[in-house]
């Protein structure tokens, strides 16, 4: 059993990293902020952490903490101008943010190493660290979800005008969502840099943005369990079907279209909704089939 786990450990670590970034993306989407800045946040966190450890010899724990803080600060700064934008415009602006970060990383060669990136970073992150951090992030997300903040986020996502009329401050909660997204993104970016020995600008580009978005669309945008499903399916699917590994983008593409067309809430959210319906139906003594017929009529 242990041996089996050993051989799949890199896959499992990959899953944990995708899961962490997926939570960063979810934090924004949940509040109705159409941000795709997660890749940029994680790039900032990764570079901050790597530079601190390599150039200044900072202890890994402190470096990761500062990486997360840098991500959060970027989210906070970004939230002020982005409060003016909505929807597609927000997506484009956060995309531009990511591109600026990458092109700066390419340009500032003395600090960031340019296109080569930063190499031979001492490895100090193992699966256990990742697991602990993921557990902490999940707990925080769960706590936020159960609190008034989570309800405000949900209200903002569903209808901004109604939420504002009910006394939810749009600016403040959007800023909070950006900060949470930034902290989580920076945190996992920083851990990535202490896990993988090297970082380069290319790994934080458009493709990272797409894969993070895929995980969250596939899993679900509002439930805690959603990103787990999304990241797990995206990690396991290419492993299950080795011949498919070569066609990974193609499989991801088909999944994206299929899910957004047939299961727009995502696998996790749809399952939760299904079980909730069943439970309610059982309480009222109506069979699920009958209810679903009524619902579709």
């Amino acid at each position: 059993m242990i041996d089996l786990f050993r051989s799949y450990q890199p896959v499992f670590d990959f899953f944990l990293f995708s899961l962490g970034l997926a939570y960063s993306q979810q934090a924004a989407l949940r509040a109705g902020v159409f941000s795709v800045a997660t890749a940029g946040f994680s790039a900032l966190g990764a570079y901050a952490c790597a530079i601190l450890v390599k150039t200044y010899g900072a202890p890994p724990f402190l470096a990761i903490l500062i990486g997360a803080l840098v991500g959060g600060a970027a989210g906070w700064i970004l939230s002020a101008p982005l409060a003016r934008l909505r929807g597609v415009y927000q997506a484009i602006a956060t995309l531009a943010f990511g591109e600026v970060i990458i092109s700066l990383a390419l340009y500032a060669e003395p600090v960031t190493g340019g296109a080569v990136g930063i190499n031979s970073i001492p490895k100090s992150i193992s699966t256990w660290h990742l697991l602990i951090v993921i557990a902490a992030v999940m707990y925080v997300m769960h706590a936020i979800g159960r609190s008034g903040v989570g309800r405000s986020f949900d209200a903002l996502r569903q209808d901004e005008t109604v939420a504002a009329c009910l006394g939810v401050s749009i600016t403040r909660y959007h800023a909070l969502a950006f900060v949470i997204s930034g902290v989580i993104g920076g945190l996992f970016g920083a851990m990535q840099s202490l896990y993988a020995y090297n970082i380069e600008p290319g790994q934080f580009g458009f493709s990272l943005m797409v894969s993070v978005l895929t995980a969250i669309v596939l899993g679900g945008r509002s439930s805690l369990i959603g990103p787990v499903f999304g990241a797990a399916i995206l990690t396991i699917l290419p492993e299950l079907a080795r011949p498919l590994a070569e066609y990974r983008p193609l499989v991801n593409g088909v999944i994206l279209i299929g899910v957004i067309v047939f299961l727009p809430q995502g696998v996790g959210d749809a399952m939760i909704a299904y079980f909730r319906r069943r439970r309610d139906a059982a309480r009222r003594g109506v069979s699920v089939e009958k209810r679903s017929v009524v619902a579709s009529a």
Partner: protein
Amino acid sequence: MIAQQLLNGLISGAVYALFALGFTLIFGVQKVLNLAHGGVFMAGAFIAYYAVVIGLPFWVGFLLAVIASGLIAVLIDLIAFRPLRARGHANAEFAAIVASIGVDLILISLAQKLSNTKVLSFPFGTFPVEFFRFWGLRISLLQITILATLAILLLGLIYYLQRTTFGRQIRAVAISERASALLGVNSTAVYFQTFFIAGAMAGIAGVLIGLSFNSIHFLMGEPYMLRAFVVVVLGGLGNLPGAVFASLLLGMLQAMTVAYLPPGLSDTIIFAILFIVLLFWPNGLFGGSRISVGVGRQ
């Protein structure tokens, strides 16, 4: 020297414009970002390349590429966008972006498989290499072709949208699909047309860009996609002449930054400008909140 730089910038701007026209047309009509546009563009270049390689004359390959990429765009609409429109749910923008990213991934993956991840280039002499000189400037036949194609496409598109019945229908659907349906406009046909036109233009752009840089590869759409965001935001989302002006501006700006600033800063400046314009003039630099595809009937 500056004049030559500006001319080069103008031409690379024209190249961006060829790409951005279809992108902004789809946004103007349907209010969604079609992120698969880069994939269609790449498909156009690939089709022309393989047509030339199997021995067809270049113009046949070009024609094939234009028609095929138009059809691919229509197919994208059928597979990815129509089910979303039919559902008409609240998060339409998000859903459309996700679905079109999915299509883009499929196209890129197929092209990668087809080309074995290699960079392809048209055989030498596919397009006559000729240079003209005037006022101390140098311009190639291909560059003149690009400028002329852009001018013809822009004028043709504006004529089509403003002066024909089909164009009026497209504009009506852009304003309100429901109201135009009540007035007897077949919105399915309108979407078919807009996607075909946008796809065909992406195909034209793909072939011309593949020719002028002499490189065709499966990721060629991505940088143009990112530039197209800048262009359509500067020009105003859905504004066709605005997109062309913004492209030309962007091309010249880029040529200037590359020539006179430290290397590597060009992208930073361009995307920083995008960010700033989005914040202060979200409707673009050219005019107010009107979307030219959706201007009222005359």
